[in-house]
């Protein structure tokens, strides 16, 4: 069995959860087995995970699991995997998943691959799976030789696919150990898709000249429902909050569309965004290195180009809607 450990946020499932079940379902098909989902803590609508291919949903309903302590989560998830006889456990490559993957590997005596972006294959009985490495500049293929295996799935690399209907949710009786980490506060920007999960991202650099000029970028983001991001100098200067910083020392993202505005494209910035499906670069300097990594480029004054692009996108959206 392939067991996917599905995360919730405030008791609700979000897109990464459905991506994960889709990946688990397709992995199970490769391995000739079935996929089940494991849900921890308060959750609404767990039966819906069946739509994406979970043949069963197991729920450990204990409110102490509403905050994540990796030690507790790993204890519960590994017990569930053993109890259910799951040989492959898959989680999201998220802040929660990354905290858990290593622990599960140790507990289950499992080979682990962090941040996979493709389905595993069986070649002559050997389990192989690929993941991006060297900050997106290469792809590594791993061979996992252990009986148990744990994988974390890179965000936005598998799109959710409906393959069935809701399934029964079964309560799983597992002793939840007491945690040693106390969660004091969660500060999240509400109403915006977090960067690691965003399909569309609009990002600004020093070329915007100051935080007071971010309005044109926010207008553009709003026109297409994109999440805003920024380069390192912008975050370092506190023009924008640190959680918006993408790049080597910030976060790595892989949206469908990345629009880089006034960012020169230092190699450290590219390391965080070069797995984006499509990159648009707007910069007045035709020599900006970012153009070499771009699919589409606009050489021009961003203060003129960006509002024009916003306008064009609004017109397009209106036509689409009409």
């Amino acid at each position, binding site marked *: 069995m392939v067991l996917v450990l599905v995360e919730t946020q405030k008791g609700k499932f979000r897109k990464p959860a459905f991506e994960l079940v889709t990946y688990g379902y397709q992995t199970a098909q490769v391995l000739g087995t079935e996929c089940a989902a494991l849900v921890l803590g308060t959750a609404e609508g767990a039966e819906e995970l069946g739509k994406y291919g979970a043949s069963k949903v197991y729920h450990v309903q204990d409110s102490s699991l509403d905050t994540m302590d*990796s*030690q507790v989560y*790993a204890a519960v998830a590994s017990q569930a995997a053993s109890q259910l006889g799951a040989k492959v456990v898959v989680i999201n490559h*998220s*802040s929660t998943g*990354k905290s858990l*993957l*290593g*622990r599960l*590997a*140790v507990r289950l005596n*499992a*080979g*682990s691959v*962090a941040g996979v972006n493709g389905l595993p294959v069986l070649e002559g009985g050997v389990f192989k799976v690929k993941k991006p*490495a*060297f*900050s*997106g*500049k*290469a*792809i*590594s*293929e*791993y*061979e996992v*030789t252990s009986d148990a295996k744990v994988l974390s799935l890179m965000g936005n690399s598998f799109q959710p696919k409906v393959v069935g209907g809701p399934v029964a949710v079964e309560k799983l009786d597992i002793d939840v150990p007491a945690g*040693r*980490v106390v969660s004091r*506060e*969660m*500060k*999240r*920007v509400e109403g915006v898709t977090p*960067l*690691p*999960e965003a399909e*569309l991202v609009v990002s600004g650099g020093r070329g915007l000249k100051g935080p007071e000029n971010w309005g044109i970028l926010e207008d553009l983001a709003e026109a297409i429902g994109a999440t805003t991001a920024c380069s390192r100098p912008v975050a370092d200067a506190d023009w924008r909050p640190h*959680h918006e910083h993408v790049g*080597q*020392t910030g976060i*790595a993202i892989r949206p*469908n*569309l990345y629009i880089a505005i006034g960012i020169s494209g230092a*190699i*450290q910035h590219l*390391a965080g965004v070069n797995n984006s*499906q*499509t990159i*648009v670069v707007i910069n007045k300097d035709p020599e900006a290195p970012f*153009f070499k990594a771009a699919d589409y*480029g*606009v*050489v021009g004054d961003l203060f003129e*180009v960006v509002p*024009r692009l916003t*306008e064009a*996108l609004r*017109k*397009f959206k209106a036509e689409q809607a009409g």
Partner: protein
Amino acid sequence: MKILVCVSKTPETTARIAFTNGNTEFDSSGVQFIMNPYDEWYALVRAIELQEAHGGTVTIINVGPAENDTVIRKGLAIGADEAVRVDVSPRSALYVAKQIAEYAREQQFDIIFAGKETIDHNGSEVGAMVAEYLDMPFISFATTLSLEGERATISREIEGGEEVQEVNLPFVVSAAKGMAEQRIPNMRGIMMAKKKPLNVIPPVPFEDLAVATSYTLPPAKTAVKLVSPDNMDELVRLLHEEAKVI
């Protein structure tokens, strides 16, 4: 207070990435190696700051061959008190974590630092693995860490925000940007580093369970398509019809 900092050696951030031996090994010819930035800038420097404020010792551990000593000496020059190198070329995160955990188990550290991830394998696994081997709490992607007696308050990066957590010593923590400011070793530090202990110990036997066996480079980007700044309708058309992203 005893602090352990797990450090890794990685290619320098702008290094050309290529592979050799039938694409089974990283091609290190002409590549400069550095201490993994998250380990150096954030984990190590914060560990040294804590030692400066609360006393105790900072030990660096690296699992790798003798050529890693240059990187380890740099850590000593920045301010760590001593270093340990497990003398083996590791092939997996689990192997590295096992070696670190076996050493740390004897030493009873109060805090074990790791970087948030290495910039070559991007796994973010070793910290959690060490914590599990030692049955210690683990807090990942820490951006601030303050200590009052036995109690630490830590903020960590989460998707679209941050979480504040509290935990008692001992614990394992992985460090992200924000934890500390990079320190450049000064001449005195470099001289002193030469006299600081760097103990080389043998690995404990351990079998790898998952190993990277081959590498490929992503397909080369096709040349950028330039769109006139006066024709944003054209860009929108391309994004819709060609790239199919809107």
